[in-house]
């Protein structure tokens, strides 16, 4: 098996800010855009025992006063969810399926959007044993699915077993296969891994967090197409495929008095310009997406724009499995030759589009782990190009890119490298839908600019899956036993200080090898009407819908 995989970046697409009409298809794929690598970062302890109440996170204008019941809220997302099957959930992007899922299924565990810390959800806690090989997942007492059946350990195990079953072809199969689970009692599940893994709770929070009523799966053939049954705060009351979902409160929701809202509507608006228009005309109460330049959107409106600092990057990947980038010097030469700031801006010409200084958010305990990308050094780059040419393996390659932003970046790279001797660049601009197949699945590329951005908030699964041999996000086909061992070492540490040290070693080797090159930062845009309170985000930016309330 190809090691556990977490945080599936399923789709690619051009990021925000491109000229939508020029590339209709590009725009159309925004759906699958933006999103990426789920991940989480564990901090101090490995349990998720914090109380929900103090988990409120970094909202600028944090709510004062008591939540009020009643009212309706509309949220705009980019693409309608094509399915209600957690096995088909491509990622945790809030502007894709994660939001519709979250409203209906709730979550076992939450990982804070900024710090990556795991917080309780439908499960009360998930705690490891001494060496991180056995975890105990404790569910809340008295939780029921919206169909009245019990949300118990057996139900969770049934869901996970289904995801692990190869027949299901689940996106999260590797995650579900990374441990054995055993029902201890009605509310307790024991998870056992072969190797120590103090990050398993993050895997659960990001990959295995949506639980469907097993009774409904057995008895209702439409459960994944039209009629999802979960234990979340809302139930789906109307779905207009391709347009909107209307949710009403789940009468069976475990947390008395929640959700506060009488109705939640999730509206799908695919076109970027129209999303922006919807926000700036205040036709939506809430909008969450990986985007930049949102200050401009809300200029002159009452819309609020609380800032959330998230980790991740926009990156280019070298194919380390074939020439010329099987040679680390070739990769280094590229990194030294380019002005990453410019490439980031070309990729997304919006304010705030720069190159990343860390892969983690400021709130993450891993934010300041040493991570310094090589700074531009044209002379050294030229020397490396010459050296490689002399050895008879000149740096000749093509860049695979798709979408407007990717294309712009690729063109800029080509032109910047034009100033160097002994390096030849071709462009291979492909339709976005083919990117995944050509690059990730077939590995037919030299250098690929990954559309959209990758979300990272934890060493594992985030970084782990980018660097581990066979990792889901290891587009570079990078394979190093030394690296795998270093990654195992990170997982095996229980204390955050030790995790940081272990991660630091990973980064040292990474910077030496540089299988992929982050060139741009990523931002999360959350904008909402002033009357909306209780915005607590988890994973890549999904709201906890039971906490939303209106002050008017």
């Amino acid at each position: 098996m190809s090691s556990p995989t977490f945080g599936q970046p399923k789709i690619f697409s051009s990021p925000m800010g491109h000229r939508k009409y020029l590339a209709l298809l590009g725009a159309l794929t925004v759906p699958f855009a933006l999103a990426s690598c789920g991940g989480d970062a564990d901090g101090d302890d490995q349990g998720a025992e914090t109380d929900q109440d103090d988990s409120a996170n970094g909202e600028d204008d944090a709510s004062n006063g008591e939540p009020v019941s009643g009212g309706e809220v509309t949220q705009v997302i980019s693409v309608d969810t094509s399915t209600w099957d957690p096995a088909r959930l491509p990622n945790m992007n809030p502007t894709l399926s994660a939001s519709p899922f979250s409203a209906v299924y709730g979550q076992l565990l939450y990982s804070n959007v900024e710090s990556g810390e795991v917080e309780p959800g439908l499960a009360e806690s998930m705690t490891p044993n001494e060496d991180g090989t056995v975890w105990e997942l404790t569910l809340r007492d008295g939780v029921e699915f919206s169909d009245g059946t019990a949300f118990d350990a057996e139900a969770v195990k049934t869901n996970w077993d289904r995801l692990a079953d190869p027949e299901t072809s689940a996106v999260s199969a590797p995650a579900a296969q990374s441990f054995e689970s055993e029902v201890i009692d009605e509310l307790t599940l024991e998870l056992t891994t072969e190797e120590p893994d103090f990050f398993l709770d993050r895997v659960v929070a990001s990959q295995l967090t949506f639980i469907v009523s097993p009774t409904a799966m057995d008895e209702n053939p439409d459960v994944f197409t039209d009629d999802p049954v979960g234990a979340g705060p809302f139930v789906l009351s109307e779905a207009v495929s391709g347009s909107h979902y209307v949710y009403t409160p789940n009468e069976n929701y475990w947390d008395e008095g929640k959700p506060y809202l009488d109705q939640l509507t999730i509206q799908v608006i695919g076109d970027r310009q129209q999303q922006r228009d919807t926000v700036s005309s205040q036709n939506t109460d809430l909008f969450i997406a990986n985007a930049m330049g949102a200050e401009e959107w809300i200029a002159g409106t009452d819309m609020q724009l609380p800032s959330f600092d998230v980790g991740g990057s926009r990156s280019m990947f070298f194919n380390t499995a074939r020439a010329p980038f099987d040679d680390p010097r070739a990769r280094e030469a590229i990194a030294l030759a380019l002005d990453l700031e410019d490439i980031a801006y070309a990729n997304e010409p919006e304010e705030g589009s720069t190159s990343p200084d860390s892969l983690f958010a400021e709130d993450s305990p891993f934010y300041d782990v040493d991570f310094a990308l090589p700074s531009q050094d044209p002379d050294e780059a030229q020397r490396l190009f010459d050296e490689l040419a002399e050895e008879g393996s000149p740096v000749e390659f093509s860049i695979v890119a798709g979408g407007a932003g990717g294309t712009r970046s690729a063109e800029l790279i080509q032109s910047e490298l034009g100033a160097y001797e002994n390096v030849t660049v071709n462009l291979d601009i492909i339709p976005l839908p083919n990117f995944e197949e050509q690059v990730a699945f077939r590995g037919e590329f030299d250098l690929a600019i990954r559309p959209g951005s990758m979300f990272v908030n934890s060493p594992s699964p985030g970084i782990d899956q980018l660097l581990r041999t066979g990792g889901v996000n290891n587009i570079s086909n990078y394979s190093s036993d030394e690296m795998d061992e270093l990654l195992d070492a990170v997982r095996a540490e229980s204390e955050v200080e030790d995790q940081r040290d272990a991660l630091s070693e990973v980064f040292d080797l990474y910077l030496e090898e540089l299988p992929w090159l982050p060139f741009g930062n990523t931002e999360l845009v959350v904008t909402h009407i002033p009357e909306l309170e209780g915005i607590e985000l988890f994973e890549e930016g999904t709201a906890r819908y039971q906490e939303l309330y209106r002050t008017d």
Partner: protein
Amino acid sequence: MVILRAVAEKLLYLLPVLLLVTLATTLLIDLLPGDPAVTVLGLGATPEQVERINTEYGFDRPFYERYVTWLFGALTGDFGNSLVTSRPVLAEITARLPVTIQLTAMSLVLAVVFAIILALVAAVKEGSKFDRMMAALASASMSVPPFVAAVVLVFIFALVLGWSPVAGYSPLRDGLGRNLYYMALPVITMAMLETGFFYRILRGDLGTTLREDYILAARSKGLGTGYIMLRHALRPSLFSLMAMVGLSVGRLLGGSVIVEYFFSIPGLGQLLVNSVTTLDIPVIQASVVLIAIFYVLINSTVDVLYSVVDPRVKLR
């Protein structure tokens, strides 16, 4: 009765057309780059999973075999299941089709009605300021592609005036008023271009008709201008317009892809776009065929309508 028979005959001629369309669609989809199985499974797809999907959906079988299988399925109303949603393709499409039909039909009707009214008025006032202004407006509206019109309309009516939502849709079952509230801008967007085309062609034909002796004869009978325009001038001027309407259905269906996407209207166009993005082949195939059928049916209807408008056209 004659008309019914004519329609039935048209439908008979439709069969080879449909056969060709379905064949071409299957072939074209074959040429689409990308592997649907990988697209469906995602980044972590294993070769085994891909193979399972390919076998399940028959993507690994030769072209003719897939076509014949699909055709027989289609004949029995079974278009397979969507790769992405697992719902039957037919259910996916029937959920979307009425939306597109409504959008197209409303746009068409709006465009025809506006074009007729404006052309009649302009033709009466031939050479007037109004006539010249309309000629300029028509040219302008014809040169504005829907996606530009959409942006401008949204800016004016949604952002500046706030009369209309930016995007979205409300199904008819939730009330006609709400439905129209959301449909207004998309319909106007699509109708604008067509109104220009229709206006131009009808205004031209009306000009010719008004020079006909029978119009002079009607005027010599002391009939009112309005009566003459409606009773005597309009009908003989409709032939080119009708041909145009038939053609414009194709343009509207094409335009609906953009307009539905832009305004987030859950119609067939949006479904098609999403399906192409996700390589949902069963859905693409059925949608294209359906759109082709729709188009051919409309044009056959137009052919039949000629005989209604012009008694000289004999139904075969």
